[in-house]
């Protein structure tokens, strides 16, 4: 949404990211998609050559995109366990009860924060 606002006000933008569905659902001008686990949108840690290639892809996209919603996918493949796709925020019988309890704690914390005024002003 920030990219959309900048673009609508005359600043060309490009997003480097890994949450393809969220970014494309929002609708952005230019997007370099890296199919990695969330956390390393600009390339894997301590891999400067990869990071550089991804930034260069972004710069090339700034120059070449002819229409909004242009997505380019980098060729890099996550080198670790392919199960990362399924393990992120997985819900199954092993954690269902823990998640329910976590939700209870979060709601209680939110109430405490509200009572103390420890939330951003509307």
């Amino acid at each position, binding site marked *: 949404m920030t990219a959309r606002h900048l673009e609508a006000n005359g600043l060309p933008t490009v997003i480097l990211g890994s949450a393809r569905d969220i970014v494309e659902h929002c609708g952005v001008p230019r997007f370099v998609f890296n199919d990695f686990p969330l*956390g390393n949108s600009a390339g894997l840690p301590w891999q400067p050559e990869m990071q550089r290639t991804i930034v260069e892809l972004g710069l090339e996209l700034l120059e070449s995109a002819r229409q909004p919603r242009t997505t380019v996918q980098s060729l890099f493949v996550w080198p670790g*366990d392919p199960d990362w796709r399924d*393990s992120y925020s997985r819900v199954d019988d092993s954690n269902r009860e823990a998640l329910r309890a976590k939700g209870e704690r979060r709601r209680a914390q939110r109430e405490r924060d509200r009572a103390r005024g420890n939330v951003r002003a509307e």
Partner: protein
Amino acid sequence: MSQALSEKPRELTPATTRTTFVRYIDRTREHYEAQGFERPYRWAYHQNVPLTPLNKPLSESVVSLITTANEPSPPGWKVGDPRPLRRVHSFSSGEPPSLYTDDLSWHKEVTNTDDLDSFLPVHRLTELAEEGRIGRLADRCHGVPTEYSHRRTVENDAPEILHRCREDGADVVILVPL
């Protein structure tokens, strides 16, 4: 670096029966339902998308860099202490601080954010500026909080980021959400 990252690349399973990229919208909804939150999050959706062409070559352009990572922890802060409220923040691109990412949703079991350039490529852009690929990196980078409220982002944070980018003389902006 974690063990997983040092392994040799493996091929994805060919001829998969499912979408290859993770459907985070679905995954997030299921995760919050399991926590007992009754109203699913409504992700931003827009039919129309703006596009502004470059108005000068990148080799002459000032590039701004935006992150969703949060401000560094205050001195003396310990795990468990309250964090400063999330807000738009700015920091030197020449000497970037240690940004706080623990409260953001990323895949903490398989990767890390120990290398700033893996989520905010300040050094890579500095190198590209030295080589003349871009004019220069703006003196400041900016952080925009990931907000539950669309309105807060659209009405408060995005205009503030635009204002700060203009102050910096930015010609183009690279945004890197975690």
